[in-house]
């Protein structure tokens, strides 16, 4: 044993025992005292043998290098050699670490019992994937460590709590003392089981998910030196800071060397050489001193945790050793660590100092909350914790028969009527069930519902969009006029500091798992709109820019609003003609609603009443009438997270029937009235409706409502103004079947006319037009005439050059 070990200040209680005791009982001291464990000098290589002793311990600067707390007897006798040694035997129960109520032996035993026995059959964490849930969880993890060789054991604090509440309390209150004890317990257990494994260093326990604190804002002085878990977003990371752990001094006279440990951030330079007794002869040798890695990370509280009208708080976090560079700015993370407050350094030249402490967190464990999002797994990363009571309230609400109507009327209460539109948006907020067919090569099925609102200006479309944007946590709001393709998708930027290329994501990617609200959809440039094609069906975004080629997830629902091209909606025209959007894009919307001014007296009266009430009702009255926005938010979040409805037999039948019916309608008139896309829409809507009911099964009533809503939307948007029939081809091909038929007729009439004229190789354009007009009983516009010409040209019957028409 190295002498320096004994003289470390952290081992005050052993100092008096003298080296002899230690030499006699080396293993005992090594194994039993947490104070011993992990102190820097214990890194000095012991005799090589397998087991705990053979594997070098690694310091844990995350727990703080200052551990000057000795063990004391409960009777607060001055620690004596007997006491310390006896602590391992008879008096074991009485001894606690100074300033705490932690008894090392008991604590260790408890933790070992926890590791050996804890079983969590209901675990669904992704870390535990592939483990047998009915076997002791952590023993399997130890086995994993022996195979993989990564000496880190992550321990979920809630597991500890359910196993032994007292142990959990100790862990939270005295992490600095308890975690080394845990380390020791694990290592003993591990090397007992796998005596031959070789690890880089001893296993370190990393607890996470301490339930005590979740919010940065709720940190207060009582949390100092306790273990906490907070969530936040990384905003800045520093360069790597080498932090000296042990200074190496060498005597300039006799070359005697000595090591001095850092104590509370300072090195006490030895004034006298112990070997030759020269004063001030020792010099620091930098490259033989020991350093550990350290990184400063700034974390800002996530926007969801903040009260309105205040600015976000930031906290400084220190990462040590292998946790350095684990996170990047922009990551959303959960941090478990020890909260520290350090007094501002006293400056010897100043008599008085600032009375402020610097606070930071020494991180023990990082957990990225958005990591899974990148892997494209499920969305439970957004998991919001709901209290029991809250869940109860939500379930109660869900059990009400009229929950669907209640929720839809709670949506944007300031906007009057438009019940079906609100219902549509409500279903959009819930979304369908995500299905993965990538095994069979079909990829993901879209679960998101897309909605387009068109209508007269001033029918509060924007207001509805704003409301939705404010309601959902991951909502984005853009205006077609102001956004470019780049702003919607993503762009590559060079970081001015690091020269690193960074991918900056735009609105669509940012609203992954949320809703992207796009106002003034019609004002959007074609190139911008084209990126939506991929997003709205494949739910991904492909980027190939500046050497970065990637595909990002953009599983976003699109809620768009478009104004008619003419200032007013023209009821004589079809939807496509009114808003002039490509039908390829339109067919990707599940529901297209018209928001029109209905112009009837009863409606006007209700509207007036609603508006006047809006202005003059008191807050209380409003609240009585409608559901609280916060409840609605939670309701949606809960349903999105926990409810995954599946079709039952009846519902499938009902869907098939509905689809067949839809196709039948058209076939009588020789046109297609439904496409598989419509069937998919129906399924999504039915699933969403089942989610509204908190039901795990999609039943017939869900299908009925989906059908009704879908039909309602079609009736509004896909009615052929010429015939009054609903015609899906308006949306899918941009032209109603009757219009197509008509076009054909005109072309045929023109052809006939030309043929009747006999063999004239060339004709005047204007004359031909006049002739056709004279011949036909229906009015023929110039557009129609031109279209007919084009159709004939396509048939290679004629060609148009300038003002002449030639036959071929």
């Amino acid at each position, binding site marked *: 044993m190295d002498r320096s070990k004994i003289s470390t200040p952290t081992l005050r209680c052993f100092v008096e025992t003298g080296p002899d005791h230690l030499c006699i009982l080396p293993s005992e001291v090594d194994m039993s005292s947490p104070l011993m464990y992990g102190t820097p000098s214990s890194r000095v290589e012991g005799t090589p043998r397998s087991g705990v002793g053979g594997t070098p311990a690694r310091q844990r600067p995350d727990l703080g290098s200052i551990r000057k707390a000795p063990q004391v007897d409960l009777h607060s006798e001055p620690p004596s050699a007997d006491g310390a040694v006896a602590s391992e035997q008879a008096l074991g129960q009485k001894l606690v670490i100074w300033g705490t109520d932690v008894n090392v032996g008991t604590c260790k035993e408890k933790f070992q019992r926890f590791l050996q026995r804890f079983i969590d059959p209901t675990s669904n964490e992704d870390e535990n994937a592939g483990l047998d849930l009915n076997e002791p969880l952590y023993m399997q993890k130890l086995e994993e460590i022996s195979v993989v060789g990564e000496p880190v054991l992550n321990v979920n604090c809630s597991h500890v709590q359910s196993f032994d509440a007292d142990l959990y309390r100790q862990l939270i209150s005295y992490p600095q003392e308890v975690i080394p004890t845990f380390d020791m317990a694990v290592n003993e257990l591990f090397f007992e089981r796998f005596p031959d494994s070789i690890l880089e260093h001893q296993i370190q326990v990393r607890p996470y998910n301490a339930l005590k604190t979740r919010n940065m804002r709720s940190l207060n002085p009582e949390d100092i030196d306790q273990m906490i878990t907070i969530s936040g977003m990384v905003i800045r990371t520093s360069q790597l800071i080498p932090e000296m752990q042990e200074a190496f001094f060498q005597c300039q006279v006799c070359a005697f060397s000595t090591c001095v440990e850092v104590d509370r951030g300072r090195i006490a330079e030895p004034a006298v050489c112990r070997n030759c007794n020269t004063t001030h002869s020792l010099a620091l040798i930098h490259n033989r001193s020991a350093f550990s890695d350290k990184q400063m990370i*700034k974390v800002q509280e996530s926007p969801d945790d903040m009260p*309105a009208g205040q600015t976000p708080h930031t906290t400084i976090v220190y990462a040590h050793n292998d946790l350095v560079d684990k996170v990047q700015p922009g990551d959303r993370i959960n941090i478990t660590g020890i909260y520290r407050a350090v007094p501002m350094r006293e400056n010897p030249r100043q*008599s008085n100092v600032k009375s402020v402490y610097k606070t930071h967190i020494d991180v023990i464990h990082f957990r990225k909350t958005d990591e899974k999002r990148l892997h494209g797994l499920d969305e439970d990363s957004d998991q919001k914790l709901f209290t029991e009571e809250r869940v109860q309230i939500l379930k109660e609400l869900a059990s009400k028969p009229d929950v669907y109507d209640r929720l839809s009327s709670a949506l944007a209460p300031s906007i009057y009527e438009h019940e079906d539109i609100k219902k549509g948006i409500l279903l959009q907020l819930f979304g369908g069930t995500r299905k993965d067919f990538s095994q069979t090569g079909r990829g993901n099925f879209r679960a998101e519902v897309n909605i387009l609102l068109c209508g007269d200006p001033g029918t509060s479309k924007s207001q509805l969009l704003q409301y939705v944007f404010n309601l959902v946590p991951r909502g984005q709001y853009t205006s077609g006029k102001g956004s470019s393709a780049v702003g919607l998708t993503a762009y590559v930027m060079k970081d001015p500091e690091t020269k690193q290329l960074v991918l900056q994501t735009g609105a669509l990617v940012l609203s992954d798992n949320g809703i992207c609200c796009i106002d003034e959809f019609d004002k959007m440039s074609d190139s911008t709109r084209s990126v939506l094609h991929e997003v709205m069906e494949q739910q991904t975004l492909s980027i190939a820019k500046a050497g970065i080629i990637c595909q990002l997830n953009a599983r976003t629902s699109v809620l768009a609003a478009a104004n008619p091209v003419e200032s007013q909606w023209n009821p004589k025209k079809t939807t496509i003609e009114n808003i002039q959007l490509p039908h390829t894009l339109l067919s990707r919307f599940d529901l297209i609603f018209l928001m029109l001014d209905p112009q009837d007296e009863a409606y006007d009266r209700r509207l007036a009443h609603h508006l006047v009430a809006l202005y003059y009702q008191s807050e209380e009255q409003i609240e009585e009438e409608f559901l609280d926005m916060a409840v609605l938010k939670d309701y949606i979040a809960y349903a999105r997270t926990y409810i995954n409805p599946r079709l039952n037999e009846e519902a499938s039948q009902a869907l098939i029937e509905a689809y067949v019916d839809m196709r039948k309608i058209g076939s009588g008139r020789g046109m297609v009235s439904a496409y598989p896309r419509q069937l998919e829409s129906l399924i999504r809507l039915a699933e969403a409706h089942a989610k509204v009911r908190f039901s795990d099964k999609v039943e017939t009533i869900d299908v009925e409502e989906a059908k009704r809503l879908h039909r309602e939307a079609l009736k509004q948007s896909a009615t052929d103004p010429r015939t009054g029939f609903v015609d899906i081809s308006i949306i899918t091909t941009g032209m109603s079947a009757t219009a197509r038929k008509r076009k054909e007729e005109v072309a045929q009439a023109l052809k006939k006319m030309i043929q009747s004229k006999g063999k004239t190789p060339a004709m005047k354009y204007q004359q031909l037009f006049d002739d056709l007009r004279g011949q036909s009983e229906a009015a023929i516009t110039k557009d129609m005439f031109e279209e007919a010409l084009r159709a004939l040209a396509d048939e290679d019957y004629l060609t148009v050059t300038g003002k002449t028409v030639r036959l071929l």
Partner: protein
Amino acid sequence: MRMWFVCRFCCPAAQSNSNPEWEAKVLEYFKGQLREKESHSWVPSLNDVPLHYLKPNSLVKFRCLVQDMFDPEFYMGVYETVDPSTKANVLRCGKYKDVTECGVDLNSRNTVTAERQTFYCVPIPGESPWAKEISFLSAARVVPSTSYVPSRQKRSYEEDDDDMDTQPQKQREPHTGGMGETPQIQPHGNGDSKRQETEAPSSQTTAPSDCSSHLDLNFPLPGERGPACLVKVYEGLDSFKLNDTLEIYGILSVNPVLTVLGEEKDPSLLLLNPTESMETPEEQRAHDPPASLVPRLHMLYARPLQHNNPLLPSAPTEDQSAFVSSFLVEMASVRAELLAYLTHVLLGDGLAAEYLLLHLISNVYTRRDVLPLGKFTLNLSGCPLNSYTERLYQIVQQLVPCSYRLSMSLHTMNSMRLVPKKDYVANRLVSGALQLARNTSLFLDETQLEQGQLDSSGVRNITALGNLISWQKVDYDFSYHQMEFPCNINVLVTSEGRSLLPSDCQVPLQPQVTPPNMEEYLTTIHMAQFTSQINKFRVYLSLARTLDYSISDEVTKAVEDDFVDMRKDDPQSVTAEDLHRMLVVARLLSLSLGQTTLSRDGWMRAKHIDMLRRSRTEQQKSLNGNEP
């Protein structure tokens, strides 16, 4: 009384040993004292008195806007010191102080750690010179015991003046003075308003940091002056919000140690203890500026300000209700005078004057989910060019306590920062021109806009203005995400044609007179008003907006019927949006007359003027249509 305050704060620790409730008692005591009549005016104000005239550790007040909220900090609430000579331990109190006494025992078990938060506060942005003036004078009347006597105040301002003169002043105009200052306060009021006018245009284009040489005090508006202050808040942290306007009473701390601590760095200490190097120099500059420039203020008590009009009693006491009821009697007559005045100003256009008046008393009184109610953005189109809008702004500025004119030239739109942005390096919120106090009049001068290319920041700025007008909110840029801050700003847009920004109501100006010399005309109108008259207008405008308002069921019914009738005739002509606007107009019209309920007459009147306005816009449209 002042000396007593000082005393008390030198030795509060004496009490701290025995009685832990002393803190609450101290607060109670001060609140009690300040509640007494006029006593708050004895406290010198940081807004008026230059810092070097104020005693450190004395009680001062500060009228300000919370510009940024820093992270909470832990400090030694109670600590123990060891006297090196006698070895005696003494318990001391760290509350309301920045610096500890010498010889702190860091290992003492008696140390109590407490939490406080720092707010970065700036004087209310865009506060009109007259408001500053009057609050200064009223304070000066009753400050017998300050070392700072008002007669010396002029001197200090002159010093400042000289300083300012060394800066390049581009647009010194001959007519800047004389807008409504009475002779008695003219001397330096003049100078003040001059500064405002001359400086604003020149510094708008440059970064705010140019205003105060090396240290950027982060004022929302360019060309602002006045002390910024780091306010340490001990109680009720959750009750304060960003952009709140407060009157803070607290203990001034300008200990030079605060500055030295930041600058004097021992390199060896840095190496061993990176804890101290974790702050970037930028951050240090932002969070620990020299105390001589940015004093610290330890808050005892803060009063949220409903308005910053010094002519009105500020606290909602019996005092105020008496004031209100006495003024209500005059309301109608003042309104008539003000209307006549505005009509003159708007070149004889009575309708536009009416709308301007309604606009000036508008106020977002509540929000229904995302919809702000009560906002009334006015677009005054058809404004004559050549500095008319500038004059108009000066007149508005004379009437409202807070205002700002944003000249929407292409250059400003492209270069100016309107939306506050979080600077993560310095860890602070860099202010922008849209970080304004409630009820500030924002005067957007679109006549300055020329044809040309808006770059991306210009587009962002225009979008921000649009959001402000439509939703009364500003999305602050936190670089990884945006955060929405609701606001309550009266936006007035002056333009030639219809404004490119949205507005609640557009009024084309129809001048009845065409004075040959516009400047002379307006100056004459302005000079014709007595200060007492102008003061009445000021009180009127601030007061009308604070009145409560309701509508009876009977009138509700009538309004509904009316709406249905109107739609019957021509559904296209009246939409839901029109009803929205008419309801707001009716509300403002009633309030402007001092009526707190809507009467049928009020509704008819609102309908009538809205009809007039609409016919005028139609007319304008057809006129434009006829043009080639």
